[in-house]
């Protein structure tokens, strides 16, 4: 049947209606598809969370053993103030005190800027290990003085003292009777390590 112009015009409204129906249907299918994709994403996330929680629950006995094993060391790190922010004034006080107590002749030191040594992933936040490099120059009467200085430093706490380098050498200065002349000199590099745990109460 060949349509006249007028008849073709009469088909315009039904065509628009049919198109609207089709578009509405397509939109419905699309929105349903999007919703389905979103729901599947949420499901995958929930499934992962459930699996992780279940696995963690299954490992709880091992975890309890680990906690019991590690708690003492953690408490000790806390007591020694290795855990926490740097205590630079405490360090300075400790060095001055050691020098005085050990009657060291000459002691010079510099502490460098803090640097991040490592950051360990954990929950609720990463545990960060910081190190501040300290250079110490000592004038010694005897090599034992160096060892005592290092031991005292370790005992003073407020950081974990990791000695990186230590050089001990003769000064070659002649011994005079009037004053205490250092026979040895030592220069050491020591990392002062502190730990920042964001979950620490």
């Amino acid at each position, binding site marked *: 049947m060949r349509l006249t112009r007028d008849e073709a015009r009469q088909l315009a409204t039904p065509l628009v209606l049919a198109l609207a129906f089709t578009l509405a249907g397509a939109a419905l299918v699309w929105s349903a598809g999007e919703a389905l994709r979103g729901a599947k994403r949420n499901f995958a996330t929930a499934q992962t969370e459930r699996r992780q929680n279940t696995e963690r629950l299954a490992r709880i006995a091992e975890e309890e053993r680990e906690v019991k094993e590690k708690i003492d060391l953690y408490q000790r790190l806390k007591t020694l103030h290795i855990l926490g922010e740097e205590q630079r004034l405490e360090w300075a006080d400790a060095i001055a005190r050691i020098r005085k107590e050990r009657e060291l002749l000459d002691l010079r030191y510099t502490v460098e800027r803090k640097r991040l040594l*490592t950051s360990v992933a954990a929950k609720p936040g990463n545990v960060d290990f910081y190190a501040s490099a300290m250079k110490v120059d000592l004038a010694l009467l005897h090599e034992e003085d160096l060892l005592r200085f290092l031991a005292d430093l370790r005992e003073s706490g407020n950081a974990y003292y990791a000695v990186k380098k230590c050089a001990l050498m003769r000064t070659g200065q002649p011994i005079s009777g009037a004053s205490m002349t250092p026979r040895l000199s030592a220069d050491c590099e020591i990392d002062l390590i502190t730990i920042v745990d964001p979950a620490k109460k």
Partner: protein
Amino acid sequence: MAKRLILYLSADEHLLYRAERTALELEGSFSADEAGLDAFRDYLQGARGALFAVLADLAGEDFHEEQIPAVRGSDREALLARRLAQRYRDTRLVTALSLGQVLAPERRNERVLLASFTNTQQLSQWLDALEEAGARLAGVYSAPLLAPALASALGARDARVLVVSANRAGLRQCYVENGRLRFARLERTGELPPEALGRFVRSETQRLVQYLVTLRALPRDAGPMQVLVIAPPGQRAVFEQALHSDGRLTFRTIDYSDALRAVKLRRPPEGGGTEALFVHLAAQKPPREQFANRDERRRYLLWQLQRGIVAAGAAAFCLCLLLGGSRWLDVLNVRSATAEQRELARTAAQQYARITSSFPVTDTSTENLKAAVVEFRRIAERSSDPELAFTHISRVLQKFPQVELETLRWSVGKPGEVRLAPTRTASPGAADPVETLVVVEISGRVNATQRNDYRGITAQVQRFASALVGEGYELVRTQLPFDVTSEGVLSGDIGSAAESGEAPRFTVVIGQRLR
């Protein structure tokens, strides 16, 4: 929904019915003259948008059987048009009904029943009125065209059936063969009492059968033919008395109310006759074959096309709705499963929290506690104290009083960070990867030995270096005060008076693996 109207045309009166799914209602009545036609024209002014069908129940309907070659499509249409034009002078209202194919000696033929009205004038004026009013004409039917559908609805099972009904127009007799119309006639009845009408039905049926036999439309030895007689309301008993079967005719009288039920017409028009059955079938089950040509039905076909387009759109929407609905069901299922997973995760987390609450009191989370301690241990393992090395060296020095120490350099670090000589002494397990190494460089002098006593100095330094090995320490490098290797230069000044008093210097480097 468009109003569906059926114009029932009889010789005396034309009735307009409004058809619904299971109901018929008389919309108007028009006399079969100019006045009636004018009234119909007036009516049409107010019936815009309605769908019309015309049902002619008139005498003078011609049926003629012919055979045409069995062709299809436009060829068949053209062939039939030619045959119809040959048969009827006025082809405005003609149709051809297929009666099935026959196998001729040389080719396959199709039997067709050509049908038209001997006097189309009585119809044409009313069709013109519809055309002038721009009405949508679905089709022009005659009562016989609907007879096969009526016979089927009434449960006729025989191959040859005669459907007889007392319509408003007269006694309508339709011969249906194998579900197809074969012949029909209308005999005016006038006002007859039921008994007389019953007898009239019997006599007219016998006459028709005789005529069909004469025409050879009905085989002479075909056996008794079933005659379905639709009795007017309340006249079934009278009809059954008058219509007793014999060797040629088997009458089956059907009550009008039963016939209404059979065609699913629940609300027939008030005061209507058995023609209501035909009208209802014309509205609800119109046959494909009808008399109007394509041009007269153009508006209806356009209307159908419009509805078809919208219906296609609606069907597409429904399909999408189904698909979308199915996906939404999936969404609901997935959401439900997600909620279940979340609930399980929450339960596991709660259980974990409950159990961990009985753990030793910590000032941090379990994970942070583990991370802090494990990493600290790792750092501590890679650290060392110079005191251990100093004590070891001090112990060895006591055995070598001629060796005087000048410098001691202790360092700890990765192999790349601490100074190592290229000619490192191989040791067991040297292939193992070394993470951290303690390196001690010892520089000193050998006293009480002639500077030119190369052998003696070498022996003493070698012994000293060997004594340093042990307790985890390995010899890394030994540097003598002179070069005794083949690659170096060896010089001497034996017996010279200008011999330096300075003791020869040496360097020994030892290392210890931490991990």
